[in-house]
C-alpha cells in the first residue's frame, strides 16, 4: 500500500530551472532578481542532492514558460502515481509536457486530470493547493483550485481520504502550511491559517502535531526523510523569518537546512514550489 511508509520518504526530486523570463508574468515588471533567484535555486537543489541525498532530476528551463519553475503545481505525486494537474492559468498548462515525460521515465503511473473531458471539464487543480500528509490529502479550495479538480484528485488517489478545506482569498494552501514531519504540520499564525487548520482538524481522523510559526513565510518548508534515514527540513533562513527559526529548532534530531527563497516569495512562491518529491523505492 502506498500508505505503508510514513510521510517524507523520498528518493527523487524533480526540479525545473529558473528561466530568463523569471518574474515576467503577465507583462508585469517585478523587482525580482533573476540572478539571485537562480542562485537560490542552486542552493536548494544542492541541498536536496548533497545534504538530503536525493536523486535530482532537473528539467531545463524554458523561457517560454516563465512560471515553469513552480513545478509543484504541475503534478501531484503519491506512491507511484502522478496526477498531472491542470493549472488555473491557461498559459501554464504547457508546463506539464516536460513533467509528464519525466514521470513516465520514472515509471510512474501518469494520470491526466484533463485527459478525459468528461467529468473533469472545468476542473482546475494546482499542486500548491494540495497537502499530502502521508495519510490523507487536503485540498485547499482557492482561486486556482476548484472542487472539480479536487474530485479528480480523489478519484485518482482512491486509497486516501481527500478533504477540501477553505483557503483565504489570495493564498494557496501550501502558503500557509506544510508538512514538518510524518505527523507534523507546520502552519502559519495568521487568522486565515488558523481557520484552515481548524477545518483540517475537524476533517481528519488522525492526530497531527502542529507547529505554529509566527511568520507566514516560514509556514512552507520541505521535509524529507532521506535515504540516510535522517530528518531534513528545508526552511527559510533567519533573514526571511527571524522569529520562526526558534520554532524549527524545537524539532529534535532534525537537520535544519536554511534555504533562501526570497525571490520566489515575491512571486507568491515558496520552497516547496521548486520541487516534486518522489519515492521510487519499492515498498512492497
Amino acid at each position, binding site marked *: *500500500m*502506498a*500508505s*505503508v511508509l510514513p510521510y517524507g520518504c523520498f528518493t527523487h526530486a524533480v526540479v525545473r530551472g529558473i528561466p530568463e523570463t523569471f518574474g515576467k508574468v503577465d507583462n508585469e515588471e517585478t523587482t525580482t532578481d533573476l540572478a539571485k533567484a537562480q542562485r537560490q535555486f542552486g542552493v536548494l537543489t544542492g541541498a536536496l542532492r548533497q545534504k538530503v541525498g536525493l536523486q535530482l532530476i532537473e528539467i531545463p528551463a524554458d523561457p517560454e514558460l516563465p512560471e515553469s519553475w513552480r513545478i509543484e503545481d504541475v503534478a501531484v505525486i503519491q*506512491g*507511484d*502515481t502522478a496526477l498531472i494537474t491542470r493549472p488555473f492559468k491557461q498559459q501554464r498548462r504547457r508546463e506539464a509536457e516536460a513533467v509528464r515525460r519525466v514521470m513516465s521515465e520514472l515509471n510512474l*503511473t501518469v494520470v491526466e486530470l484533463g485527459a478525459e473531458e468528461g467529468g473533469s471539464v472545468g476542473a482546475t487543480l494546482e499542486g500548491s493547493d494540495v497537502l499530502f500528509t502521508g*495519510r*490523507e490529502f487536503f*485540498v485547499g479550495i482557492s482561486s486556482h483550485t476548484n*472542487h472539480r479538480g*479536487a*474530485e479528480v484528485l*480523489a*478519484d*485518482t*488517489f*482512491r*486509497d*486516501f*481520504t*481527500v*478533504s*477540501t478545506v477553505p483557503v483565504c482569498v489570495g493564498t494557496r494552501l501550501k502558503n500557509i502550511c506544510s508538512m514538518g514531519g510524518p505527523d507534523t504540520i507546520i502552519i502559519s499564525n495568521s487568522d486565515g491559517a488558523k481557520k484552515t487548520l481548524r477545518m483540517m482538524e*475537524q*476533517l*481528519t*481522523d488522525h492526530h497531527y502535531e502542529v507547529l505554529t510559526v509566527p511568520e507566514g513565510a516560514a509556514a512552507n518548508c520541505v521535509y524529507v526523510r532521506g535515504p540516510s534515514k535522517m530528518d531534513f527540513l528545508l526552511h527559510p533562513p533567519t533573514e526571511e523569518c527571524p522569529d520562526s527559526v526558534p520554532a524549527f529548532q524545537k524539532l529534535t534530531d532534525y537537520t535544519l537546512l536554511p534555504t533562501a527563497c526570497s525571490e520566489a516569495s515575491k512571486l507568491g512562491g515558496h520552497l516547496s514550489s521548486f520541487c516534486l518529491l518522489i519515492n521510487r523505492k519499492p515498498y*512492497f
Partner: protein
Amino acid sequence: MTTEVGSETEVRKEPEKAEEQPAAPESEPAATNQTDEAKAAEQSANDHPAPATDSAQAPAEAKEKQEEAQPADNATPLEGEDTPASPPASEKKGISRFLPPWLKKQKSQSQVGPKESQAAPKEEAGVASVKEEDGEKGEQAEAEQTSSPTAAQPQVEEEKINGEPKPEQKEEVKSEEKEEENHSTGSADTQPAKEEKAAEESQEKSAAEESQEKSAAEEETKEAEEGGEEKKDEEESPKPEGGHSFIKSPLKLTKKVKMVMCHVTMLDGSQFPCEVEKRAKGQYLFFKVYEALNLLEKDYFGLSYKDNADQTCWLDPTKEIKRQIRNATWQFAFNVKFYPPDPSQLTEDITRYLLCLQLRQDIVSGRLPCSFVTHSLLGSYALQAELGDHDSGEHRLDYISDFQFAPSQTKEMEEKVVELHKTHRGMTPAQADAQFLENAKKLSMYGVDLHHAKDSEGVDIMLGVCANGLLIYKDRLRINRFAWPKILKISYKRSNFYIKIRPGETEQFESSVGFKLPNHRAAKRVWKVCVENHTFFRLMTPEAPIKAKFLTLGSKFRYSGRTQAQTRQASTLIDRPAPYFERTSSKRISRSLDGAPMINVTEPQESAPTSGENGREPGLELSSDFKVEEEPSEGAAATPTEGTEMKGDEPDSSQQDLDKTQEDVLKHQASISELKRSFMEATPEPRPSQWEKRLTASPATSLRLQAQGSADDKQKSGEAAWQAAEVEIEETVVVKEIRVAPKGSVTITTPEVITPVAVESEVEKPKDEVMEEQKRPVSMSSDSEEEEEEEAGEYHPQVTVSASVDQIKEEPEEEGEEEEEQQVNEEPVAEPLPEPVVEVKAQPVPAVVEENSATEPQLAPVAEESPEDILVTPDEAPNGHAESPEGHQGPVALEEEEEEEPRVNGDASHSETERLPQVICCSEPPVVKTEMVTISDTFAAQKTEIATKEVPIVHTETKTITYEAAQLDGSGDGEPGVLMTAQTITSESLCTTTTTHITKTLKGGLSETRIEKRIVITGDSDIDHDQALAQAIKEAKEQHPDMSVTRVVVHKETELAEEGED
C-alpha cells in the same frame, strides 16, 4: 412435551397435513413414524454426516421437536393439536424426507431421542437468558403446543407461564393467525405487554422452548418419545409452511408453528439455508449462522436483508424477523456490520478471515475504492491466503483469472497481482489475511457506510457512518466530519436527519445540522446505523477500569449487541484451539453465487455445530446445538430451534426463569399483563446479561411503540409496535449522550433543575435506557413510522420528564424527547455541599450517585434535582401511565414512577402532557437535601395496546431514595455535559452499569464541574444492594477526592416476583 402417544396423534395429523399441503410426500412419511424415522435416520446420515454429536443433537432435537410441533400447529389447527403430541423424532423424520440431506441430519440427530433429551435439558438450563426470550416465544409456542395434545404437558407449562390458558386448538389457530397477521390476535391473547415482540415470537417458539425448558426432564423423556412425534410434526409442518408460501416448501415441518426457510448468503458466496419459525426473532437466525460458521467473535457481524425498496437493512436480533422484513423475501446476507478499526486486535483468525471476505466483497463491488496498486496488493494477499505460495510451475497466469480483485480487472492488474504474490512466499494464510487487513484498514472508505442525502441547501451529499463518527462527502470529497464525541444528539424526523453538535471551545451554543434523506425510511436507517455505530465504537470507555471480570458493556441502549469494548473483553476469554476452516471464497465471490455454496456452508456447520460448539461457548453453544439440530431438520427443527436460540442468547437460567414466570403467571393468570410481567421478571432475574436487559427493556419499549403503532397502523401496530419499541430502545441510547449535551444547553430554559441523573434505571434497564427513551421518540419510526415522525416533531418536547430509565423506556417516544429536553434544561449545578449521606438504605438496584464539585458554588443553594429523580418505572410498557407525579418532596428528589407505556399513540401523548406538568413540579421544589422514597407498582393499565395486541406487563416495584446536599441554583448555564464513560460490568449474578457525565459550567467567572455518575446494578434478587451502593459511592469518592457528593439518588426496582422474594 407430550409423549409418544402424542406422536400417534401427530401421525394422524401428518397425513392430514400432507393432504392439505401440496407437499404430499410429507404426508406420506408422516403417516408412519417409523418410516419417517428410518428416513430421518437416513437423511441424517446423509445430511448430518458430520459431526452432529449426540449431545448437541439432543438439544437441537428437543428444540426441533418443539419447533416442529409449533409449525405443525400453525399449519393446521388440527395438525397443531396432533402435532404437540407427536414426538419430535417423527416430525424430524418426516421433515427429513422433505428436507435436504443436511436438514435430515439434524432430524436424525433429534431422532437420537435419548441423547438429545439429555442434552436438551442441559441446554435449557444453560440458556436461561435465552429462555426468557424463548419464554416469550414459548408463550406463543405454548399456545400452539397447547393446541396439540401431545404437547399438552409442555403446553400446559407454557400456558401457565403465559398465564393464559388458551385452548389448544384455539391456540393453534391463533398461531396461524398470528403468523399471518403478525401475531395480532393470537399473540394478543397470549402475549402480555412485554412480549410485544418477543412474546409473539416467543409464543410460538418459546412455547416449544418453554415447554422444553420447564419440563426439561419431562421433555427429555418426552423428547425421546416426542422424537417420533416431532418427526410427525415436521411432516405436518411442511404443510403449514406451504400455506405460508415463501420458501418453506416441504422442508418445513411444523405442526403448530409455521416454518419459513431463510436463505443466508454467506461471505464466501455460498447459501446457507436455515429454517426458522415464522415468528422467530433475528437472533435465532443469527445463532444459526454463527454456529454454522463456528464464529465466536460475532458481534462485528450482522445479517442484512433488502427491504421492499431494495434498501439494505440490518436485521435486528431482538425483533421478529418477519416483522422486519415484512413482505420481502426471507433472503439474508451475512455481513460485517462493524468494521473493526484495528483488525489485528481480533482474537481469532477465523474472524479475520471473514472480515477479509467481506472486504473483498466490498472491493469488488466498488464500495471500498482502491487504487490500482492497492487492488493488486490486496489481491496478492488474497491469493496467498487461498492458494499458498506461488508455484510458477503450477500457477500460470490464468490461475488468477478465477479471482476477482477489483470491480474492473485488467490483465495488467492480474500481472501485478501475480508479481506481488510471488513476494509473499512463505506467508501462511493467517498471515496473509492479516496483511490484507493491515492494508485494507488504511483505506479511506474502510468501514464507512454511505447514505445518499442532501444538505440544507439541497446539494447532493453522502453521509458516511463509521467507527469514528459521521462523515460528510460531496462526491468523493470529504467536506465535513463529526466525530462521535462532538455529536450531542442524533435524531430524525420524517425524512430529515439531524445531528446536534457540541459547541466548540469558543462557541456558546450548540448547533444542529440537518440532512435531507430520500425518505423517512432512509432517515431512520441512517439514524439507526448511527446509533449502533456510536454505541458499538464510542462506548468502549477507554477509561473504564474494568471492575467486572467478565464483560464490559458500554451502554447498550439502543444497540442491543455488545460494544466493541465488550466484544474485545469477551474475546479475551476465548479459549479454544483455532478452529479449522476452509478458505474457499474468492472464486465464488468473483463468480457470483453458485449453487454449490451451500455445501460449503454446511460443512463448517456440520463440523462445528453438533457437539463441539456447545462446549465451546456456553450460552451460544447451547443455543447453537439446538440450532444445529434445527438446521439439519430445517423444516421441523426450525421452529423449536428459534426458541432454543433465544435461549442460547440468553443462557442464564432459562428453566428457572420459566419456573418463576410460571409462578408469576399462576398468580396473575387472570390478566395478560401479569403474564407479561412474568416474562419480564423471569428474564431479568436470570439474566444478568445485557441481552436480558435488552429483552426486558424491549418489551416495555415495544409497548410504547405499539401504542404509537396502534394509532398509526392498527394492523401493523402489533408487530410494528414491537419492533418500534425495540428500536426505540436503541434510540434512547443515543439520547443519553445527547441528553448530556442538552442538559448544558437547556439549562437556560428552565431554572428548574431536573437532574436526569436522578433517573434510575430499573433493574433491568440501565440508565442508558433513559437516554434511549429520549431518542426513541425520534427513532420510533420503524414500525410506526408515521408515529415516529410525529414524535420527531415533538422532539423538543417540553416535558421534562425526569423519567427514570425505565420510565423512559416505557414512555412513548415523545416522552423520551421531553426527557431529553428536560435534561438539557437541567443544569448541572455544582453544589459544594457536604456529601450527602451515602447511607443508601434502599437496596435499590440502581443507585445514582452524583458528585458535584463546584469550584465555585453557585448562588442558589437549592437545586432542583427532584425532577431528575423522578423515576418512571416502566414496568409495563403497555399503558403509558404517568404515575410519575408522585411526590417530589423536598427539594431535590422527585421520584416519579411512571407506568407509561401507553401503547396507544393517543395515550402516549396524554402521558406526555401529563408528565410535563409533573416535571415542572419537580423542578420547583428546591431543597437542600431531600430523601424521596417512592415505591410504585405498575401493574395495571399495561395492556393499553391495541386490542389485538396485548402488551405484557411487568410489575415492578420502584423505590427511589434521594440524598441531596444543598445545591446551588442550577439555573445557570448548563453547558453540555460530556459523557465520559459508560461501562457495564457483568458478573455471574449482577450487572453494573456506570455512566459518567461530566458537566462544566461557567458562571460569573466561576467554573464548576459536575460529575454525574449513574450506576445501575442489575442482578438477581440476592444482590446486596446496600453493599453495592456503598461500594459505588466509595469508589466515586475515591475517584474524585476533590469533589463532594451532593446527591445520591437510589432507585430500586424490583419485579413483583422478586419483591415477593424480598
